[in-house]
């Protein structure tokens, strides 16, 4: 299983968390396509807590966290 966590405006019209069958999602692009998230809306893509490009390869058990442009201080 993959756990996909969405944050901030990416939650609008979507769930906060998805559990997806890892077999169908070889990389981040497949996840974004499935959830209809345009790549331009992604500012931070984390795989198991580390920044990765959105097309990074995924494996069973991974936690993916996706954030739109946002920040603070």
């Amino acid at each position: 299983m993959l756990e996909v966590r969405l944050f901030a405006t990416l939650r609008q019209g979507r769930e906060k968390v998805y559990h997806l069958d890892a077999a169908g999602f070889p990389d981040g692009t497949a996840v974004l396509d499935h959830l209809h998230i345009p790549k331009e809306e992604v500012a931070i893509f984390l795989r198991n807590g580390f920044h990765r490009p959105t097309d990074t390869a995924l494996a069973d058990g991974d936690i993916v966290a996706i954030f739109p442009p946002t920040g603070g201080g």
Partner: protein
Amino acid sequence: MSRSYYEKLARIDLTAGTVAVEPLELEKAQRYIGGRGLGTKILYDEGVATVDPLGPDNKLVYITGPMTGTPSPSSGRYMVCTKSPLTGMIACSNSGGIWGAKLKHAGWDGLIVEGVAKEWTYLLVDDGEISFHSAEQYVGMKSEDMDEALRKVHGEKASVLNIGPAGEHQALLAAIINDKDRAAGRSGVGAVMGSKKLKAIVVKASVGHVTTLHDEDALKQATSRCLGILKENGVTGQGLRAYGTAVLVNIINNIGSLPTKNWQEAYFEAAEKISGETMAETCLVKPGACFRCPIVCGRIVKLNDGKVCGGPEYEPLWAYGANCGVDDLNAINVANMLCNEYGLDAISTPCTIAAAMELYQIGAITEADCEGVPLTWGSAEAIVEWTRRMGAGETELGKRMAQGSYRLCEHYGHPEVSMSVKKQEMPAYDARGIQGIGITYATSNRGGCHVRGYMISPEVLGLPQQLDRTVTDDKAAWAKTFQDLTAVIDSMGNCLFTSFALGAQEYADLLNAATGTNYTVETLLEAGERIYNLERLFNKAAGMKPEDDRLPKRLLEDPIPGGPSKGMTSKIALTLPQYYEARGWVDAFPTEETLRRLGLAE
């Protein structure tokens, strides 16, 4: 010629009850820009570095920048510069709202306050007139009530800056509050105001703009270009307005760098409950903005009892939340409001409660010490009641906690429990999981602080470009540049948050248009470097030692125990020498050659 400075400072002697108008030396102003830079220069030149911070010889400089109150974006900032009673070093606390813009509109670049009043006093700045008034009847009054009371006397349009009860009893964590919920929060500036028996400063201005701009058309153009960039940028255009800085809770937790239970852990299971997203879904009434700010990061929240008030930023959400193990958002909102009402630093106060909770965990603080409110991890009651006790100066332990975690932990024989640098509590990013921010913490001239070189921008948010948070490469040079640019922005009087979108060129354009200077990106950053080095000279004169540039042992020796950043420690021993080299410093202080290069040699 008009130059966006009024070239006018007021020297206010509380002991003698006199006001003297002093010209601002234009050349000095331009070399140090204004605000933070100029305030530090005044204090340094007047020998304040060696005085007792709570004695009559310390001075409080309330100062604007050349951009403060102008049409440029997010220009409501003013600073309070003084010698900090918390760190014993330079303090420069920055606040927004409207007070700073009004001070400027009233025709002043800044106020230099010295001496000690005979009785509790407040000052009224009414355009060019400054008068003294008794504040005896307001003693003990909380900030918000004080704000309302003084605006009843001086009119709704007046803007009020004041200290609450915490500043009155000289709590070293006391802040200065303006416009009800904006704070010059850090380094105990409120305690200095209390030591001078100065309860408030009311400002009235009959015009609503700066009348001395150098080139109004050029400033208009530069401003509209900046507004365009801010609007287009995802962070400053929509992100901060929708979720405030609180959106960071989930980001920082997901990279396993959200300090939890006084930095014993770095991942908080219940983070979602105290996040910006949850706040927006539950208690957020509306966003709020400071003077002329298109970013609108402020939060107005509704408490469970129906009261509507200023809401917490990311820092207090983290510090009361994850750092105390608390997942009750309403309790955090209440505790944050108490910080505003009593006039307490909303970072150091909850961090000190977290340190007290660890002291309680290891048995150093006893049940009896707690007088009915045990300092247990996760206790919503504890964060609210101990904030109140610290603010009101109630109970032996509450009074001790109001002096900050360093003095508290040292008293109990466990200095290692204080997660502070230069005796000031570190903010919400674990420097084990994010290597560059550790350089900022260790070398910040005002002690543990994130806004002296916000390395989170490149290391986490990817602005202006993504750096790998786990490595040390190039971080020293990045930290130096961020520190220098930040010194510039603070000194100008614009909000630091504009720098998520704007770069050095935009700041140079704004400044040149307003003041008639010819700053380039290079000379502007050099001015920032000059300011940073001047602060360091102040600290040296104040008795700072090279070993004060250090992180708590826990960050070096105890690897993060779980979560995404499991196993990581800070590599500051590696980056600190690189940083000194980049700065032209030896053993934490600038060399003669560096001072000469920056025009700081005696």
